[in-house]
């Protein structure tokens, strides 16, 4: 049972990752190209006539193929973890139907793990960001993911205690989620390493493409996982029913 769910999560995660990779290729790569062109023009202005000494390990075509490797492996890993969490939640927390639980869990994961970090530390194209601060920026990013996950657990625990009807439960859950999240957004240090003169439109378009990539991934994954799980449940329910029929 757990094995089936884990394999389902890994494979559908890989598939959703490749779909998200397609979106990122179409809408994100042109922005990455523009940002790299700006970066190179800036470097050429800083040291005119001096050609870049650094050898490129992977050229741009290689990096565009590597995009699909990255989103595919990301989907595989995230899909596997999702399946194990789903196995623990099933029948205990959330909607009773398989498809309903898959969609609710994927939607919650998008908000907690993607949207909560994105609001505080939005995605940046190449040419934005100081290489010296990558350690602290990565740490802060991971902290916001952990805050999102902890806030989700608090929201679920709070909602389960409220017995005054569905509206009161939803209000309590959203409030219990937002209090720690907004506190973290307020208290954590702000990072702004966008260079002066970097085009605002390009930055906005890149960030939209980045958020879109994650939205495509979680939507595709939630729908696929829910659809396959619903089908499997219907088949499992149908087998004993027909077997019990007197022929």
């Amino acid at each position: 049972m757990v094995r089936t769910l884990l394999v389902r999560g890994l494979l559908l995660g890989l598939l959703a990752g490749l779909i998200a990779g397609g979106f990122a290729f179409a809408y994100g790569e042109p922005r990455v190209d523009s940002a790299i062109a700006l970066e190179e023009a800036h470097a050429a202005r800083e040291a005119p006539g001096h050609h870049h000494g650094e050898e490129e390990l992977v050229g741009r075509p290689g990096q565009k193929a590597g995009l699909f490797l990255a989103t595919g492996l990301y989907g595989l890993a995230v899909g596997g973890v999702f399946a194990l969490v789903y196995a623990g939640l099933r029948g205990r927390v959330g909607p009773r139907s398989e498809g309903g639980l898959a969609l609710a869990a994927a939607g919650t994961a998008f908000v907690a793990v993607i949207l909560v970090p994105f609001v505080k530390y939005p995605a940046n194209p190449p040419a934005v960001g100081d290489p010296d601060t990558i350690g602290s920026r990565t740490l802060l990013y991971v902290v916001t993911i952990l805050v999102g996950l902890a806030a989700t657990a608090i929201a679920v625990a709070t909602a389960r205690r409220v017995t005054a009807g569905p509206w009161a439960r939803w209000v309590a859950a959203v409030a219990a989620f937002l209090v720690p999240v907004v506190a973290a957004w307020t208290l954590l240090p702000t990072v702004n390493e966008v260079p002066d003169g970097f085009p605002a439109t390009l930055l906005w378009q890149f960030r939209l493409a980045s958020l879109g990539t994650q939205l495509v991934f979680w939507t595709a994954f939630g729908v696929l996982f829910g659809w396959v799980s619903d089908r499997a449940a219907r088949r499992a329910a149908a087998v004993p029913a027909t077997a019990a029929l007197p022929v």
Partner: protein
Amino acid sequence: MSGLSTPSVIPFPRLRLWLLAVPVLLLIAYLVLMDNGAISQTGAYLHELMHDGRHLLGVPCH
């Protein structure tokens, strides 16, 4: 239709062994999203190859 309305609950002891997969999966995610050659020992090659994915998945870089 009972299979649809009340999915079977998986007992936690049966889940425990499978949780060993979580560190492996998180290591894969780390190598894709955050490693700069420190763990993979491929220098910057893996980082460069999956660089666009890292930026577009929204993880800090550069």
